């Protein structure tokens, strides 16, 4: 099972990747062989390979993340989630499944909630992205963040950023008009601790409080 999956994934990338890589490795290997003792050259060759390869493999992309425009260079296979967590140190967006099934990675792209684990970063050139880190106005928490604290809409806190991003979108979309509607439109965000009733209360309070969300 594992092998099949692996081959499938490999097929799409191998033809052009491997040829180029093999060439790079061989050429640097030959040069290095002549010039340096074996232990040193291995490491050096590898590093050179990567430096050259990076230029080919990465794609320039401009993202506006939490109101800051960033010019980035990313591999096409990097998801928005992994870009945020692994490269930009924005770890507030959580990885819970990588399959778009749990909602922990929910962010806003141009104001719309999306699962960042199912979104390649290169697809978002020129888009505005808001993560949990960009929701508050400085020290002033967003009303939804305040309501989550007040109603204890979490326990372990891991699904919380996704729940809050989804909750804000849920209110903005006009899908928070009743308890039943909130439950329906929040069902893409799993909370394994089971704080659901408190999350619903928090959303209702924000919706009924009339604050700007």
């Amino acid at each position, binding site marked *: *099972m*594992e*092998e099949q*999956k*692996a081959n499938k994934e*490999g097929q799409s*990338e191998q033809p052009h990747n491997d040829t180029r*890589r093999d060439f790079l490795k061989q050429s640097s290997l030959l040069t290095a062989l002549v010039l340096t003792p074996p232990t040193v050259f291995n490491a050096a060759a590898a590093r050179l*390979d*990567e430096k050259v*390869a990076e230029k080919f493999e990465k794609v320039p992309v401009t993202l506006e993340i939490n109101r800051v425009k960033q010019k980035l260079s990313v*591999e096409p*296979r*990097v998801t928005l989630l*992994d870009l945020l*967590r*692994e490269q930009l*140190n924005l*770890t*507030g967006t*959580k*990885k*819970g*499944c990588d*399959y778009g099934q*749990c909602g*922990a990675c929910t962010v806003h792209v141009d104001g719309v909630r999306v699962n960042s684990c199912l979104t390649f970063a290169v697809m978002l050139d020129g888009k505005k992205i808001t*993560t949990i*880190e960009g*929701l*508050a106005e400085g020290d002033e*928490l967003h009303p939804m*963040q305040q309501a*989550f*604290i*007040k109603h*204890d809409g*979490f*326990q*372990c*806190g*891991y*699904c*919380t*950023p996704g729940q*809050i991003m989804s909750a804000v979108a849920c209110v903005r979309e006009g899908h928070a008009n009743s308890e039943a509607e*909130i*439950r*329906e439109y*929040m*069902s893409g*965000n*799993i*909370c*394994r*601790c*089971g*704080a*659901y*009733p408190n999350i619903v209360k928090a959303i209702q309070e924000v919706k009924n409080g009339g604050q700007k969300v």
Partner: protein
Amino acid sequence: MGFIDDKEVEAPFVGDPMDRIDGRLKVTGTATYSAEYQLPEMAHAVLIGSTVAKGRIKSMDTKQAERAPGVLAVISHLNSPKVPGHINRDHPAEPPKIGQPLRVFYDDKIYFNDQPVAVVVADTLERARYAAGLIQVKYKEEPHQTDFNQNKQKADLPTQAKRNPKSGLADYTRGKEDAYATEAIKMEAEYVQPTEVHNPMELQAVIAHWEAPDRLTLYDKTQGVKSTQKTFAEEWNIPVENVKVVATFVGGAFGNALHNWPHETAAIIAAKKVNRPVKLMLTREQMFTMVGYRPHTWQKVGMSASADGQLTGITHEAIGQTSSYEEFTESTLQQSRMMYTCPNVTTRYRILPLDISTPIWMRGPGEATGAFALESALDEMAHQLKIDPLAFRLHNLPDKDPQNGKPWSTNYLRECMEMGAERIGWQERKMQPGSNREGEWLVGFGMGAGTFGANRRGAKAYAKLQPNGTILIQSATTDIGPGTGTAMVQIAADALGVQPDKIRFELGNSAFPDSPKQGGSSTINSVGSAVRAACLELKQKLQQLAAARSGTAFSAAKPEDISIADGSITLAGNRSASITYADLLKQNQGQDIEVLTTSEPGQEREKYSMYSFSVHFAKVHVHPVTGQVLVQKVVCCADAGTIINTKTAGNQMIGGAVGGIGMALVEDAVLDHRFGRYVTKDFASYHVPVHADIPPVEVAFVNKPDMIVDPIGTKGLGEIAIIGVAPAIANAVFNATGKRIRELPITPDKLV
């Protein structure tokens, strides 16, 4: 801020619905979980699992993977650095289990499908994941046994029970063995709890960092930083103090981080091999195979009663699944031995090793499984007797522990039942199943009770008065979600007589004073007691120093009259009695004013029987055509002693109800026995409750202290929140439809 006098301190804080101290961090995304530490030169690891359930690795081709861009190492049994603890004897680190945890990359043997066989380390996650797909493994397959039903006859007594006939796992008889069988009014039924998977939202993750060849730091998802420290110190044969374990935030666990698992060792091996910090996060599929689960358990209950509703016999048997290399056991039958008055009780517990990974305690571990059978059987018996199931239970509540004759430390189960019945509207329940409708829906009411031992273990806490008048408290406990830190601050605020915002409580670091794992509903009982003791001792020390410095006013004062203010300590009602911290420090020879306090349980367990109790009531709708079950309302009542924080404790109870709804209606890890592998491997195939599944949940606490269990009066809450929920729903479904579903989950196909 000036002096705080008694009027401003709104003590007691214990009992307040205080907001969580870490709430702001959690809602802003700044709480740091184990995979979220940034270390220089950190590499990424991806595990490859076996594709057979039993056999040996015949060959492994890693050449392509090793040549792939960014790859730093591919490690398997062929080239793994030797792990000193991986020797051919019982693993020393896990006393509750017999056998030995899987020794990852030790040899070519395969014990279960998706067993880690190799790890790829690369400079980025994408590169590691890509290279992992290039590894070709060939196996010499052997026939595997993963089918519980086909192997049931191979079930055996746990080793612990063989060694010790008095063990809680050994066969038990009170009165006459299997007395129910010869009684006139009796029932007999079999119940099945399928494998459930904890699936916390945070994937299991660890960052392993060898700071020196004999110094290891782990940022790890664990429920016990001290136990993890000890495990890996022993595994790598280095001094305990050379291992540092950090788990400041844990994104849920429900028991699956009580054990240390192969992926942790794999990350440590990888970090050793590449000599860089290595981050390893499991995939959701690996969460099904590598970090434990609630084991598939078969049960049979035989029960008899007199016509007037007095229990006369209970026989409860269980067979729980374990792995082929480690014996996992749990207290599945305990509730049947002590919850109800019954002169004749027999229990028999067996375990069945299969070619699957080792289970681990999942919330309300064996008790939740056992309560499904027992509390369903009680409902069946009551129905047969034509007695209300609430009245039947109330009629059989014992006034002392029937198992050992000891008095209860406290037992307010009756109060729980009464308060719950009123809140759910029990009087609307119809005795005749299928006779209650609301529109097109059938309506049913059900109840289920639960119990869990009120455990207290030894724990330590450190407390220090800071120059600015704040108090720092540390203990090596963890918080997997209940709000441990918040509760500790409330306990400390009362013990010290200061505002909660003057207290900083730190946890989740093995450098802090010794504390048990967060499990078995024992954290507040154990660590809370230690925090309280440390605070009282600190206050006493302050008084002594003040008395030595400024004389009789302080030495004669009562501890509660002493106020810890911003720059000095003062006496209530005596404004002139004041001594600055600078002076106190001088009196203390310039040393920090600090205490390290140990708190241990006493002999109370020998005199008393100590348990928490809960009862859950459910109202369900069942669609007569589609078989859809919609839970309409759940009421959860608990006798857990003192409630420290009604907001967080209420939330914890709600979470138990949600977990119980999952157990009752949707959760089922399904194996394809042809391959011995789970076909449920994500949230599309393994269902857990979502928002739409969860109705309003009402929580009520008895909230009476049990001063025998510990000096705070707590008994523990986490487990009883889920124990008894699943049978409450199953019984409600019976009441709605007349259909008794004895194999969970209750999916629509079983009702149409």
